[in-house]
């Protein structure tokens, strides 16, 4: 245990004494200090929502809210940078299945949150951002640290509010909380002018409640379900495509039952990783740009694609013209606007993923006759194996590092990542079996997501769950300051840097599409991350050779606190399979020559 950890309570002990949210809330009702002003109303609204952790950075305009947190049981984690606070809150929400809370002051505090809010918005992650704002009478005067935060965040939130009065501020925060997690989740933001936070009020906010008219759909139209059911029954090559929405809807078990009961092979999207065990025979892992060859063959040849909680993103579909070109599409989604947005849905089923899957099962009289198709899928698994060979004298293969961690950890271990090649290797070579164990930046593709999300995930994870962050050298350097938080809070997380001293994914594309002109993708020099980790107060290792991998992995996992292993991998390693942008999924390349 590092020295810095001694001044902090033992993380394990702390979480075992935590009360379930309901009990905590009722106790708050009995013992909590009364609401006296806008700030105490804001904190009470969070407590009413069962909030136990919040991530943020102090600053002038948000000071009254922080002062109110002094008297609250909510544990606040001071992050090094507001972007880190937003990513930590986002990841906390993903793992805990409740909105993560991020706090920041006005102006730069709020704008630093923006990347994290946009990330949560793209991945439909529930998050509530609370931002300080200059006093109401100074708004619009270009005051110190003033930014039009509701204006800036309008396109990247489900909704945002400019708090107008202390009397209503608590219920506004409650609404923001409820809206963030309802239906298709997403980030919300409440901008809190300092005078409103200071303003006296004794209005106790109620339980978080949805704004009128925001109730999400639950069951799908029965006629659509019946039509979809008969199409699935008649299908010869049915395929279930499970997206991140299945996890958000807590419909993983239902989706697994659906696939098994009807004998339908499964592919997932990248955010859908964990919806279905990847070691199961029916599972073909994830499809898309760097998905498995067999998943991309299946999605190309299916005659009935059942998409659940997926938005048919371009990284999944490849070229629209050749996406599942023979398939009748059944699309189950809670957001009507996702239906036929990118891919036309022949059978739209708008509702909750689990509910609609149950409706479908209810409506089906027989299983599709898909025995040959299942065999075909197995054949593709054999034809396009995710295999690599290693040469012990050559530089480290990143895939080997990922597999070494996977083998050394339990199935419930949470994996977070930055964005780039390392993210693809982690998602390809880690065998995921459980939902909420893959935490990554999918839609926005935010380099630097890995470390702060590991911190957020650590606070939400069970005590017996490990947290491993795969990062690239470039990604790690973008938010490395958050290591100070991990050390201060003595968080048991392990960062595996797959270091090739490149912006590797860019370098790979330059080799394939820009004649190898490595413009601004070669770092040429990187700090020694093991020593940097030690300087922060974490434990650090540097690994160059295969025979050091197992021992360093074991030591890092055993170390009770933050640790960093700087793996110097083969700088020429590339990510395959790869579907070039806009190309047919079925024409995935297995090497650069095939691009």
């Amino acid at each position, binding site marked *: 245990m590092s020295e810095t950890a001694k001044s902090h309570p033992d993380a394990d002990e702390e979480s075992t004494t935590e009360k379930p949210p309901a009990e905590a809330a009722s106790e708050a009702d009995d013992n909590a200090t009364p609401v006296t002003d806008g700030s105490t109303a804001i904190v009470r609204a969070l407590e009413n929502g069962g909030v136990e952790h919040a991530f943020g950075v102090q600053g002038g305009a948000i000071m009254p809210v922080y002062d109110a947190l002094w008297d609250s049981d909510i544990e606040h984690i001071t992050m090094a940078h507001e972007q880190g606070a937003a990513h930590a809150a986002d990841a906390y929400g993903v793992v805990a299945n409740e909105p993560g809370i991020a706090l920041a002051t006005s102006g730069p505090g709020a704008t630093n949150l923006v990347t994290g809010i946009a990330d949560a918005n793209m991945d439909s992650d529930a998050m509530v951002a609370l931002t300080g704002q200059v006093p109401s009478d100074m708004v619009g005067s270009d005051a110190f640290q003033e930014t039009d935060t509701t204006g800036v965040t309008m396109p990247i939130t489900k909704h945002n509010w400019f708090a107008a009065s202390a009397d209503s501020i608590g219920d506004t925060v409650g609404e923001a909380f409820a809206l963030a997690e309802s239906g298709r989740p997403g980030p919300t933001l409440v901008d809190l002018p300092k005078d409103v936070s200071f303003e006296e009020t004794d209005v106790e906010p109620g339980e978080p409640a949805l704004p009128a*008219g925001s109730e999400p759909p639950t069951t799908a139209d029965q006629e659509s379900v019946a039509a979809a059911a008969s199409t699935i029954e008649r299908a010869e090559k049915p395929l279930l495509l499970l997206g991140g929405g299945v996890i958000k809807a807590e419909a993983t078990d239902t989706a697994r039952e659906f696939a098994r009961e009807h004998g339908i092979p499964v592919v997932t999207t990248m955010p859908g990783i964990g919806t279905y065990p990847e070691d199961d025979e029916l599972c073909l892992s994830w499809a898309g740009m760097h998905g498995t060859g067999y998943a991309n063959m299946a999605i190309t040849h299916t005659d009935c694609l059942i998409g659940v909680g997926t938005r048919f993103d371009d990284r999944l579909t490849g070229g629209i*013209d050749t996406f599942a070109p023979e398939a009748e599409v059944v699309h189950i989604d809670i957001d*009507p606007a996702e239906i036929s947005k990118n891919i*036309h849905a022949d059978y739209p089923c708008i509702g909750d993923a689990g509910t609609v899957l149950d409706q479908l099962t209810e409506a089906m009289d027989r299983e599709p006759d898909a025995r040959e198709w299942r065999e075909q899928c197995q054949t593709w698994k054999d034809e396009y194996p995710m295999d690599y060979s290693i040469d012990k004298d050559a530089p480290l293969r990143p895939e080997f590092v990922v597999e070494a961690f996977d083998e050394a950890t339990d199935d419930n271990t949470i994996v977070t990542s930055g964005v780039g090649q390392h993210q693809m290797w982690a998602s390809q070579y880690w065998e995921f079996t459980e939902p909420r164990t893959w935490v990554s930046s999918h839609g926005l593709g935010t380099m630097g997501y890995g470390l702060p999300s590991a911190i957020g995930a650590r606070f939400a994870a069970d005590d017996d769950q490990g947290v491993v962050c795969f990062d690239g050298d470039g990604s790690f350097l973008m938010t490395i300051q958050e290591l100070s938080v991990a050390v201060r809070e003595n968080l048991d997380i392990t960062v595996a840097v797959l270091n090739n001293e490149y912006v590797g994914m860019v370098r790979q594309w330059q080799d394939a599409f820009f004649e190898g002109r490595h413009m601004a993708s070669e770092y040429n020099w990187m700090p020694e991350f093991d020593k940097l980790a030690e300087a922060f107060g974490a434990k650090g290792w540097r690994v160059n050779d295969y025979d050091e991998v197992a021992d360093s992995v074991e030591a890092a996992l055993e170390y009770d606190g933050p640790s960093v292993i700087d793996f110097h991998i083969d700088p*020429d390693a590339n990510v395959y399979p790869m579907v070039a942008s806009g190309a047919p999924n079925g024409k995935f390349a297995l090497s650069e020559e*095939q691009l």
Partner: protein
Amino acid sequence: MSENQQGLQGPPPEERPHPDGRRNSQGIRIDPEVEAEPDTQTAMISALVEHEPGVLARVAGLFSRRQFNIESLTVGPTTVEGNARLTLIVEEPEPGIDQAKKQLAKLKPVISVGELEGRPVRSELVLLKVNGDDPDRVQAVTEMYDGTTLDAGPETITVQLTGEYNEIEDALDAYRQFGIIEIARTGPTALARGSTPTTPGEKPAAEATAVGVEADGGGDAGGDSAESQAETTN
């Protein structure tokens, strides 16, 4: 260069079977032999919204960031206090119009969205300033198109016209001979014909309560709206 094998095993792309089917740019399966992209259509969309600060920015921002082609947008109050009606003319292929309506309905202050199909009652108001050299002939044209003269000075005459798009365009053609100096147009606004509500579930003030507006008219976006009875569709 390392000794590592780069790439994976398996049949190369050209050796793999690939289905013949195709989708168009809207993701709709098509006959590859008679490939056709959908035509752009003009749709009139009416949205009932909470009249709160920023609602216009939310709608305008949505159309801008999703690249929906919008020809005009009008806003004004309805019979229900605290509600407003937005009337938009959108030019998109059919899936784009559908998508615009659905994205609009997702905005929190949007209560309900309807498309005015068939023959809605629609009209536009135009203010027109023309050269005043020949007031008698200007007056004759104004009478012909049921316009109103709002201001007549020694140099300019300002006229108000109302009507449907074609009527307005015909009138403008007639005024061109005098020399049009300035034009201000509201853009068309519309209601559904007969007893059909313009947006689904819409009710007059006597039967509806404004959504999201406090009794004291404070206009706080996050105000208490729990007792709202208005039927909503978003």
